[in-house]
């Protein structure tokens, strides 16, 4: 078989991030039931990407954050439709851990100061 994995990519993937602001994100997060999501100045952002299956993203949000299925599905849809969603808030230490977990699952995630968008 041809060693396609070791050949250079056809095109370099630019950070295809929809950098549009999502004004609804703050309200959404504030309205959620999980207490852990509203207690810090930092947040974890998950970005849309064309590879991760929607069911997989829901699975990851439920498993890592312990979110209910409706909450996880709502966040997944927000990522898909708006390009990004805030999935957790907290101390910098906590959101760094969350980002690391998201990367372990192959989700594109960043941390940032709350209110940056």
């Amino acid at each position, binding site marked *: 078989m041809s*060693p396609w994995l070791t050949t250079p*990519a056809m095109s370099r993937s630019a950070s295809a991030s929809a950098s549009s602001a999502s004004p609804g994100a703050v309200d959404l997060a504030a309205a959620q039931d999980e207490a852990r999501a509203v207690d810090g100045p930092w947040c974890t952002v998950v970005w*849309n990407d064309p*590879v991760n299956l929607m069911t997989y993203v829901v699975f990851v949000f439920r498993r890592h954050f312990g979110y209910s299925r409706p909450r996880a599905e709502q966040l997944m849809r927000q990522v898909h439709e708006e390009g990004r969603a805030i999935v957790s808030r907290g101390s910098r230490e906590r959101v760094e851990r969350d980002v*690391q977990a998201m990367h372990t*699952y192959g989700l594109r995630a960043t941390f940032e100061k709350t209110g940056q968008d």
Partner: protein
Amino acid sequence: MAHAFRRRGDGLLACRLDGEEKAIIAQVAQETADLIRTDLGVEAGTGAIRRAADSEDPLQRLEAEFAGRSAREPSDSAVSRLFPAAAEDAASADEYRRLGQQDLAEAKLADLHRVVEVLDGAGPGHGEVQVDEDDAVTMLRALNDVRIVLADRLGVQRDGDFDTVRMMQQIGEQVEGADGGEDEEHVGSDVVIAVYELLSWLQESLLRSMD
């Protein structure tokens, strides 16, 4: 032919795969691991660094600290997807990479290695592949990482790109069918497309069986 994952009476999750399917999944998992190792330069010695970090000797600890600082930025586009920048500002992203990339690489390599082990353990030929709950999660992560690499090689960057790739393939097949020719380049990407679809289907089926 492959049969979807289902939960067995004993609680294990099982699917049925052909020998060829098992072999090809194990191969792409192995190639993904090799790609990560090569691109990030985590070839060897990570265990040594860790041992040195716990060493009694302060000089060894210091050396370990410096070794950990040389986390290499991915140069391959697919590896960049697996190890993305963790923050939009470069200073935070660099610091994060320096402190966390090694652990992330080891976690991904362990996942991929485990999948190869499970598939090899299932034996050659058509048969059942069984996983417990922990292995199922490991397999979901590893299959996803492999899909990310394959998608990168297919040039998938935005929603809907894979559908376009597939449509182009089908058009290509029709054209080839008309003139009877088949060039090697097309055969290569046909295989990548087929493997990507197999892995997507398998991942979806595993997720469904876990519900």
